[in-house]
């Protein structure tokens, strides 16, 4: 148990390094977010606690993961559920579709690309956890399918998401 926990946090560290590496090369303004992501990754004990809960709460796992405006970096709170999903998918492989979405601000095709980048961020996380990449399809709908209709910050937050199906 101890060794598996250790292994998991090591994997996480590798993933985070990879994710941070990506973001810092793509933008300069993202560096603030990258820093905060690193510090929250160090605090990865949260992942371990959910690990034991995963079996009894498969149904309750989050299947929607949220993002910041014009960002495609996984939020720390998404990782626990995604790690549990990864374990389930490794135990019982099945086809997964990751649908990326954006809020309505900005242009439609740029948002289409942003939704894809978000879906791929989730996919990459699952793959690094050992899920077979060939079982995962990513599709972006951009801003075409808002979860919540409205021009409020609250609505936008709900719409910047990846849905696992």
């Amino acid at each position, binding site marked *: 148990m101890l060794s598996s926990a250790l292994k998991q946090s090591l994997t996480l560290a590798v993933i985070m390094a990879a994710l941070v590496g990506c973001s810092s090369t793509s933008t300069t303004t993202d560096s603030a977010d990258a820093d905060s992501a690193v510090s929250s990754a160090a605090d990865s004990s949260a992942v371990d606690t959910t690990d034991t809960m995963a079996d009894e709460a498969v149904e309750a796992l989050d299947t929607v993961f949220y993002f910041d405006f014009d960002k495609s970096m996984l939020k720390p709170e998404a990782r626990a559920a995604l790690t549990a999903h990864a374990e389930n998918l490794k135990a019982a492989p099945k086809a997964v579709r990751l649908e990326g979405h954006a809020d309505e601000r*900005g242009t439609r095709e740029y948002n289409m690309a942003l939704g894809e980048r978000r879906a791929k961020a989730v996919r990459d996380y699952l793959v690094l956890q050992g899920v077979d990449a060939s079982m995962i399809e990513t599709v972006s709908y951009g801003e075409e399918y808002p979860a919540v209709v409205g021009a409020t910050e609250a609505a936008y937050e709900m719409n910047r998401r990846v849905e696992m199906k």
Partner: protein
Amino acid sequence: MMLYRALGQWLVVALMAVAAQAQAELTIEITQGVDNPTAIAVVPTGWTGGALTEDVAAIASADLRRSGQFRPIAREDMLQWPRFGDQVFYRDWRVLGSDYVVLSRLNPVPGGGYSLDFELYDVLSQRKVLQRNVQAGPQGLRDLAHAMADAVYEAITGIRGAFSTKMLYVEAFGNKRYRLMLADVDGAREKELLKSNQPIVSPSWSPDGKQVVYVSFETTRPAIFRQVLATGERQQLTNFRGLNGAPVFSPDGRKVAMVLSKDGNPEIYTLDLATRVFTRHTNHFAIDTEPAWSNDGKSLIFTSDRGGKPQIYQVTLASGRVERLTFDGDYNARARFTPDGKSLVMVHRYNGVFHIATQDLESGMIRVLTQTDLDESPSIAPNGAMLLYATKDRSKGILAAVSLDAGVKFRLPSKQGDVREPAWSPYFTKR
């Protein structure tokens, strides 16, 4: 394959390419015109037959009013409705304050259809400025009216009229139903080109106005289609994993530029329609999307966040050299060249609000044209006088138009669904 079977249950795509004729669903609300519009009297069209389905003079008059450059005289205020030039009493029109008078006469053409004779008279100089005849089939009364407005507009402003052009737009009903629509630029004669329960995105025209390309999600993924307007015949151009988006025809009509992410990142490609060869023109891990051709077809502009935020870049196709074009603001996207090639129009975020703006390419000066929020998808008329764009009115998607000098504005709200992504057609006849 497994994925498709699993998805088959809820992905029932209903596709139709039929002409659904109904009453116009887009209405026009003029919100702003030029300070001193030219007063013009478009006299009711002479006709000796039975009741007509369209009021030709009224349609032409509305066209001229919508341009913002003209103030049509109400027909009730006219002292007489002359049919021929020798019946024009210039003094009466001068008293009305009318700068110009348009007379027209409609006649049936043997075998069906109509012939329209019209003249334009200058009240001040008391002379005939223009005389012309145009003809159309039995369903062509609106075409005749738009042709008359085009000729009058050009005779007075020196700019070719674009009232005979058309527009595409997407209409959505919730997240449930989508329609690709074709209509006159005054919103009339709308026709459904495609219906789907999956999103339809990014419609645009071939340079001859005979075909359209667009993105449809009907296959459970985005795919690029082209469709021939006259026959409804469709062809799926792409079926790659990932993004298949933002298709635009080259100025010579032989290629389509698009964004594909099949190799990992969204990149700009061109497809040669004859050889079916795809050529990649960008290579960057950032988002590259929303290509548009330069008027000479030798380069593409596109949106990229390679500098951290979305900005407009230009790639020269022969050399692959990439140059950044926009520097002002933290979000510039979906740019198009103006017909004269001297400016861009684009979506520009200013103080956190998304507007339509122009940028002069030589000086780099940006000018914001719209005041509303969430403005997007600017599409310029082929004469460069106005552009259509999409915006929101109390969270409903509507179309609106603004002149390139921001002096003229009108809106085209929809009576039904959310409307968006207008694409102004090219001219259908070349000069």
